[in-house]
């Protein structure tokens, strides 16, 4: 709960060292500079500087405990909820530091949605699950508008056909893959700008995974997506850019094709060829 935000006022954006392979930014939605995360005494993320480009899918890969999920959770300040977690450095979104005390975390999370590793629908009806975000933020003026939001979100998440006859059934009664798509629909119902996905397919079977991947590809048109994955094939299939993390450091970031065909760093090469990890 106690998140001290340490800011290094000495450094400016210009004198940060972009890691090897960092291309000249197109339109960066999120710019992280020298982001460090400590869990108590543990230094979980070390000096990560990374741009997330608008309208693209960026995937984070790396072995377990490499800090990719930690970094993802920095982007919507979910780390705030963890006791003893400290974040330092800057994370800019559209030119605004999201760790600025003036930034309201509730507002930030309305702009940066998140989908978790394990599908976590609320124990409420399918309708209420989707309507949750619009309701707490007051996005719909009346019932008709809310219905509209719910239906479009389900449509966008490719779930509408499967659930339209049982909107009042509990969301927890759906299959794992449907639950995860329900969670994605729930996230897009708030109309965020960025969607963070923390290993969204790790609890799903290959068919459900394929559906989610297809969905991610469609969502790219409207949202900036960041996905953490353990599956290199998945990263290769869904993302345009890939960042490889190892032991809390960002080793290499580049176009997905380049990372998987011509990695510049020894460690990246070792990981994608399956020599470790």
């Amino acid at each position, binding site marked *: 709960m106690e998140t001290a935000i340490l800011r290094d006022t000495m450094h400016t954006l210009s004198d940060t060292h972009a890691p090897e392979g960092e291309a000249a930014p197109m339109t960066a939605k999120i710019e992280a500079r020298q982001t460090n995360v400590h869990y108590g005494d543990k230094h979980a993320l070390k000096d990560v500087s990374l741009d997330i480009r608008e309208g693209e899918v960026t995937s984070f890969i790396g072995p377990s405990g490499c800090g990719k999920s930690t970094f993802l959770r920095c982007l919507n300040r979910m780390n705030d909820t963890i006791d003893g977690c400290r974040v330092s450095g800057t994370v800019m979104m559209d030119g605004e530091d999201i760790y600025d005390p003036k930034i309201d975390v509730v507002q*930030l*999370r309305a702009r940066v949605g*998140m989908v*978790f590793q394990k599908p*976590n629908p*609320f*124990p409420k009806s399918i309708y209420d699950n989707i309507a*949750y975000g619009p309701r*707490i933020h007051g996005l719909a003026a009346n019932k008709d508008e809310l219905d509209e939001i719910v239906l479009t979100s389900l449509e966008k998440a490719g779930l509408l056909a499967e659930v339209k006859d049982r909107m009042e059934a509990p969301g927890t009664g759906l299959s794992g893959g449907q639950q995860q798509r329900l969670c994605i629909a729930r996230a897009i119902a*708030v109309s965020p700008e960025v969607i963070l996905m923390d290993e969204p397919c790790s609890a799903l079977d290959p068919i459900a995974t394929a559906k989610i991947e297809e969905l991610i590809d469609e969502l790219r048109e409207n949202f900036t997506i960041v996905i953490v994955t353990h599956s290199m094939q998945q990263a290769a299939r869904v993302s345009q850019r890939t960042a490889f993390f190892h032991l809390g450091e960002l080793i290499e970031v580049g176009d997905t094709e380049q990372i998987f065909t011509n990695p510049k760093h020894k460690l990246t090469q070792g990981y994608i060829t399956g020599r470790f990890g």
Partner: protein
Amino acid sequence: MSEMTMDTPKGGARTRERVAAGIARRYRSERRFRLFGLVAIVSALAFMALLFVSIVGKGYSAFVQTEIRLPISFDVAVIDPQGLRDPDEMRAANYGKLYRDAIHGLFPGVESRSERRLLNGLVSSGATFEIRDAVFAAPDLIGKTREIWVPASDDVDMLIKGHIDRRLPEHERRMSDKEIAWIDALAADHRIETRLNWRFFSQGDSREPELSGIWGAVVGSFLTMLVTLALSFPLGVATAVYLEEFAPKNRFTDIIEVNINNLAAIPSIVFGLLGLAVFLQFFGLPRSAPVVGGLVLTLMTLPTIIIAARVSLKSVPPSIREAALGLGASKMQMVTNDVLPLAMPGILTGTIIGMGRALGETAPLLMIGMVAFIVDVPGGFSDPATVLPVQIYIWADSAERAFVERTSAAIIVLLSFLIIMNAAAVYLRSKFERRW
């Protein structure tokens, strides 16, 4: 299996030998453990059955009461000598004379004063009120004669219910041969009957066992529980929510947590002393009042509710919190929309169990004067009152034989309330239990 032994003949054979040697012992110890468990459960059930059988066996007879049918002549000269029909005058009339005259009329041979007094003693003094109520219910009775059922005295009741042994020699018995003869004569005339004891459920306490009831104690318990629930539930839940969801985790909150756990283990009489010192002495609240009883029991119940609420808040999966926070819910929205509804069944169960404990509590209430002998049914939170367990304590302490069955009957009533409350807790738990 066989392949493995072929691969490592020596080692495999040895493993098999060792396992075979120990296997009987392993199964034996498992059987022994199961047997112990079975014996424990059976003996626990047996003791419980014994408890119920003995209490119900002793107490059921209190639900009926021996009554005597007397031909009461509603004499105008006694009830309303001036003929004004003034309710105040009529209320003060000597109705006792009416039932005494009636029973003397049934036994015209009884002449001496002492014998007449003995004869009067067969009828409860409560008959006075019975007759008065009959007059007020139907004033046109005045001047007529009617057969009226009036309560018998507790000794007659005990004899009819078989608690006084007729075979004992007269001087060892509570009743003389003469009294028994009268009772037999009344019974032969179908003038004695055991009827449903509605007084037991509608009256307050009394010095006369046949007139005493638990309604006063039930109302006192109800008012006390109402105060306890109204104070301890919101306070306890708010405390638990704050500690679990909002408070920083530091040494100070650790100390608070340890102290709450310690409070739950404090003997209840200590809370009674605290209530005496604080609520009665310092704040000057009324003695023997349900409001003070409720305050004291709140102190006692709060830790139980806080602990139960914290446990059930903790058991709400973190994924639900993450889902809410990830969608941009504020902490308060997360708590009220998601966490509290999911924790509510557990909180309610804990509350009901805490309330059940409070309902059965005697010691702290003795300290604040709820042990007083109170005849009137309390009408409000500051009226003097007693509660069910204290009523049981008072009756158990009384000398009359007829209070024995009333004690057990009151225990039956208290146990039924507790069983209902616990059943409600089980029902709530199973009804609202959610899977995720």
